[in-house]
């Protein structure tokens, strides 16, 4: 993600707001991707108009005074609608930052309140206030120290970049399998089919020959494309086990699209269904966002796509469930196609 800018307008200009800004900015996650500028309203508006900032944070006048009294005066976060993803990221991080500020300020307020209750002189209260402000701010800034990080991985586990490379690779296999059959459809027109029929080459044989050609060609292209991926990520990305699973996946996709081609005779509809199924498979199968982040209903839809099983198979070639499922889908598609073509042939003969 590119580095993006955030504008902060401090209308309150107090010691507390300076600490609040410090707390907002001290976020390793945010500082990796953002650049923060403290500006006035006019400049913030100009930056927003020029699409230079992702969000403007406005700390309102009287913010510190109200917070001390326990009154909530919301900090305004204006996200740039033209950059919705980045604006949402700022929103989520600001929500956490607001909680951190509340944690610090509630502590500071408590100390001041208890001293006031005991009629402690103003100079002592003021000194304690300044001390607590600094101490609680530092306390919040050091929030990261509560965590102890540990990275765990297994042999076949992929990182997120590897995930997306393999996921896109799989999507390409799907598109090739479909595209091959689209190109094949136009080669055999009505008159040619009649001539082939007269020589004993039935539609049944013609379709399965096309299927075999698609499997061989797409497997070969897929293998060639796997070479740069292996070179980039090492053999953990695509090894011999994966190559076998890729052939299985090509078989499944080709069988599925062949079945679709047999059922849908209109070229436009075939293309439409093909694109639709590729899109559904890409989204629900987890090519765009990994399935693990899906809500339950979408995950359930994903289970019905070939893509989700294919992804599982390519990431874990030994996963028996995906092997069985891909095999089952392939055999089902081939049997349905064969039965449909056979019965259709008999119908024609009658």
């Amino acid at each position: 993600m590119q580095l993006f800018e955030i504008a902060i307008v401090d209308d309150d200009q107090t010691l507390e707001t300076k600490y609040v800004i410090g707390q907002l900015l001290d976020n390793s996650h945010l500082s990796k991707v953002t650049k923060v500028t403290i500006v006035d309203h006019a400049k913030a508006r100009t930056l927003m108009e020029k699409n230079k900032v992702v969000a403007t944070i406005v700390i309102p006048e009287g913010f510190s005074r109200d917070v001390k009294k326990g009154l909530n005066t919301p900090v305004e976060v204006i996200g740039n609608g033209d950059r919705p993803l980045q604006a949402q990221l700022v929103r989520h991080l600001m929500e956490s930052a607001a909680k951190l500020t509340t944690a610090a300020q509630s502590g500071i307020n408590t100390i001041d309140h208890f001293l006031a209750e005991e009629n402690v002189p103003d100079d002592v209260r003021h000194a304690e206030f300044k001390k607590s402000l600094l101490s609680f701010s530092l306390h919040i800034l050091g929030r990261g120290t509560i965590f102890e990080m540990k990275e765990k991985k297994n042999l076949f586990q992929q990182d997120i970049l590897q995930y997306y490379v393999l996921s896109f690779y799989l999507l390409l296999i799907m598109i090739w399998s479909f595209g091959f059959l689209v190109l094949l459809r136009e080669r055999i027109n009505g008159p040619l089919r009649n001539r082939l029929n007269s020589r004993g080459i039935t539609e049944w044989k013609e379709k399965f020959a096309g299927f075999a050609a698609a499997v061989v060609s797409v497997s070969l292209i897929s293998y060639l494309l796997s070479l740069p991926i292996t070179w980039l990520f090492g053999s953990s990305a695509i090894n011999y086990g994966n190559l076998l699973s890729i052939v299985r996946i090509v078989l499944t996709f080709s069988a599925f699209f062949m079945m679709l081609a047999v059922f849908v005779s209109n070229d436009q509809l075939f293309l439409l269904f093909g694109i639709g199924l590729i899109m559904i498979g890409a989204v629900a199968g987890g090519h765009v966002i990994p399935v693990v982040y899906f809500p339950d209903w979408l995950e359930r839809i994903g289970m019905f796509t070939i893509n989700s099983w294919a992804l599982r198979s390519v990431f874990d070639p030994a996963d028996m469930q995906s092997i069985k499922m891909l095999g089952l889908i392939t055999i089902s598609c081939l049997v349905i196609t064969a039965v449909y073509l056979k019965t259709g042939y008999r119908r024609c003969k009658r």
Partner: protein
Amino acid sequence: MNLSIAYFKIREILLHPLSLVLIFFIPLGLTLIVGHLVEKGQKQLEIPIAIIDEDHSDFSRLLVERISGQAKIHLYQVSGEKAERMLLRNDVDSVFVIKKGFQKRLLTGEREQSIEVWISPFSMAEGIVREVIASETARLTSDVKAADWVVKVYKSLDIQMDSSKTWNAAYDYTDSQWEPEPLMTIQYDQLYLEESGAGKSGFGDSPYLRLWTFFTMLGCFLTSDWIVREKGVLFFRIQSTYHGLVSYLIQNTVALFLFHLFQTLLTFYIFVKTNIIQMRPELLLLMFVYLFVCLSFSIWSASFINQIGSYYIVSFLFVIIIGILGGSFFPVQEFSSTLLKLSVIFPQNLLLSSNQMNIQTPLFISGAIVLWILAIRRLWIKR
């Protein structure tokens, strides 16, 4: 002017249900169906995390309870072994272990490394989750710190008190400031450039509008296949007729454009009625321009290709690639500055970005007219 060809084309489309499906159902129906699913899915996306409570104390239970109440986080409370298995199988984004002695350490002010975070190379969102957990832990530690501080200051000022009671009172007072709402909250608004007073025309980020740009382009390409089908057979004969080939091409494309125009109007009406977009005439105008550009592109592409299968493959790849790069599926421009600069050349930018009315719209219209003329000229010469 004799418009019999246009009339014939309109009649032909009306008599063929498939043509109507391609013109109306693809852009409008699919946009509404897929848009609804995308919107619903986006709202319900959650970050799955596992949490292991090794402390089983009041503080750890409170922390788990507060985290489980967070929107966008799906919490699995499991044992250590199961959590590790879930992490390695990518079933969760990250694992948080509340270590034994968590409460004791927080009460003594030694919060360092009291929560263990397990991440895998697959973890995407642990940074955001860590901030959420840090803020909830900070609530507990600040309560403790404030209570300690009050007792300590009272002692240094020789104020008579029951240490335990004062500590508890200060702790409760600090925590009470989170109710009914925290001291600081944010008020989030999404601003579109038009609202910033610059007189520009951003139309918001709606998955429906994004998807409409994709499905409309797809619909235009699919309905322009008649050029590929007819150019080898019919165009030779048409040139010898009274109307001539140019008139035939123009009238047919205009008839097709009229149908798509009607689809656009219908889409705009439904979008406005369902509050997907606001009633803005300039948006409707830009939708028309976008449609015109898509149709010109499809006709121009069709003029180059002789095989119908090749045309479909080219259309499919073109629409998908332009759809991805132009931002029909998600705002890719946010991922890199190069894509942001590149986005101005994609027609989707007319609807999905701001500041297009001034500069790019006339350029796109001119470009589309040029493509249209080039396509007709090419088909006329190639006859």
